[in-house]
Structures are given as C-alpha cells and as structure tokens.
C-alpha cells in the first residue's frame, strides 16, 4: 500500500495530522450524539407500543423524551457550527481573525480530548475585540499545538491568560499547567512550536519549573 501522506512535505503532513485529530474528535462526538438519539428514538417506540397495548404513558414522559432529543440536537448543532467555522479557516491564506473566536473554535472542537483526560481548561483575561491579520488555519493549529502539550494526562487544570501588551499592539496568551513528558522530548516539541509561531509572524517563549510549564505566545494584534 502506498502511503501518500508520507510523501507530503513536513508542513503539509503536520497540517493533515491536525485536521485528522479534529475530524477524529468531532466524528467521535457525533457518534455519541447519534447513539443517544438512536436510543431515545428506540425508547419512544417501546413506549408507544406499550401504550397501544393499554399501558398508559404519562404526558410528562413524552415531553421529557422530546426535551432529551432536543438537547442532543442542540449539542450537535453547536459542533456543526464550529466545524463549519473551522473548515472555512483554510479558505484564505490571510484574513482578519478574531482571536477569541479562533480560540473558542479550537476549544469546542477539542473539548472531548480535555474531558477524556479530566483536564479543565480555563481562560482569564478578555480577548474581546482583539483581532489579527494572519493565516486563520495556522493560527488554530498553533493554538491547538500549545494546548496539546498539556494533554499527556498530568494536568487537571490548564490556564490560558490573555494579556494585551500596551506598547506595540501585541496580545500575549500565556498557557500554563503541569506535564509529565521527559525534558528532552519537550524541548523538541517546543522547537517545532517556535517554528510554527514564527511562520505566522508570532513569537513563542517557554519556561519550565519542575513539571510546570508556561508557554507564552505573543501575537501581533489590533483592538477594535
């Protein structure tokens, strides 16, 4: 079998891997939603058959099942909206991107990865009105790449602090939490991240104190 992906230049390969992780995560989430709806539909059928046989089903039960289905549909619609936004992020190599929306987009589409590791992701500081002219897809890729450093199972809490640098029109995202990865492996990953940041005109700084790491991503930005 020919592995076409392995023939791609390294940048393209990394982009495909990022897209693949998002797709895998989203498809898993959709399968969960479909499974719940499928069981709810099955229960509706079970109860309607029972009602036909003379076993009354209270109105509240129908209403509660309808509410449960609506809840799953809303969950699916939320993911579809974010998936659509993510898909369109590769439309243009450069566009004005709302930083808060891009971060939220990545957070929603990777939410299950954090929940599976019981890692809470919290954001402090406001990103409201902060935008930058950049590659929208690559911005999402580096945001996820930074967060991904904390998905090795060590972190229960990862914090993202947004800070506006008053001089020079830059916004800094400081992402911190514990990791369990070996120092030499981490150093290699940080080198890759630094290159990625440079490619979108940003800077990346890294500090380690024991098992705690702090990544500072400094992005050129405008405030509306």
């Amino acid at each position, binding site marked *: 079998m020919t592995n076409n992906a392995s023939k791609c230049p390294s940048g393209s390969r990394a982009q495909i891997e990022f897209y693949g992780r998002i797709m895998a995560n989203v498809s898993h989430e959709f399968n*969960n939603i479909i*499974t719940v709806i*499928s*069981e709810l539909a*099955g*229960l509706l059928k079970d109860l309607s058959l029972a009602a036909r046989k003379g076993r009354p089903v209270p109105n509240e039960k129908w209403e509660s099942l309808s509410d449960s289905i609506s809840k799953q549909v809303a969950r699916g619609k939320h993911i579809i909206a974010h998936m659509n936004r993510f898909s369109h992020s590769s439309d243009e190599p450069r566009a004005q991107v709302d930083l808060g929306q891009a971060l939220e987009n990545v957070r929603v589409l990777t939410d299950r990865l954090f929940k599976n590791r*019981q890692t809470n992701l919290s954001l402090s500081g406001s990103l409201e009105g902060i935008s930058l002219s950049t590659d929208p897809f690559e911005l999402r890729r580096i945001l996820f790449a930074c967060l991904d450093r904390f998905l090795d199972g060590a972190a229960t809490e990862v914090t993202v602090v947004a800070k506006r640098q008053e001089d020079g029109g830059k916004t800094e995202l400081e992402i911190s939490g514990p990791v369990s990865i070996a120092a030499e492996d981490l150093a290699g990953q940080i080198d890759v991240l630094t290159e990625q940041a440079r490619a979108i005109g940003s800077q990346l700084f890294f500090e380690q104190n024991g098992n705690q790491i702090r990544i500072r991503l400094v992005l050129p930005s405008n405030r509306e």
Partner: protein
Amino acid sequence: MEKSLKVLIVDDEVDLSATLVERLAIRGFDAAAVETGSQALDRVQHDDFDIVVLDIKLKGEDGVDVMRRIKRIKQNLPVVLLTGHMSKESSEEGLRAGAIDYIIKPIDIEDLIVKLRQAAALK
C-alpha cells in the same frame, strides 16, 4: 418466575445509560447505570450483577483498565464492552483482558440483548 438478569451499565453519557436502563427494564432486565469506573467498582463489590456493559472510553479512564479492576473483584463476572471507535487494537486488547464480547455504538438493542443472554449463560 424466572429471575431478571441484573445488568450494570457503565457509561459517562448519562442520557444514553439512563435510556438503556429503561429499554432493558421494558424487556425484563433489572438494569442500573453508573458514570465512572470507581462507581462501577463500588457497585460490583456490593451488588450481585450478572453482567456489566462497559464503555471502553470513559472520561479520564481507560475502560479496559476498569474491566481489569472489576475482574480482580469478581473474576467470573462477564463484561461486554461498548465502543464508538472500534479499532482492531482496542477490541483485541479488551477481549484479551477478559471481555466476552463488544458492541459498537450506535447500539442495536436486539443485538445487545442476545449478547447479554449469551454472556449471562457463561457466568
């Protein structure tokens, strides 16, 4: 009167497990549901279940690892795995670790019932 089979469902999708409990009850099973591995271990230790239906991917936990811990408490308790992403590796690992079968989500209730009856017969 035939005794109802006692089934423990372990899944962090609460709406799914609650609905499965109701559907199994309609079909004559005595089903209960929990969300986490530690809740499952507690229930297995204190109750007399005939079979466990366990999601392979619980939040923050590996379902196969939870199954191994269940087997340490009750070695002969049959476990059927639920999976939404059935890779060959995870199914084989689950079967090697002692699961008697697996079900791929979305669930076919009639298929689940056949597997529950087969599993209970092995106990």
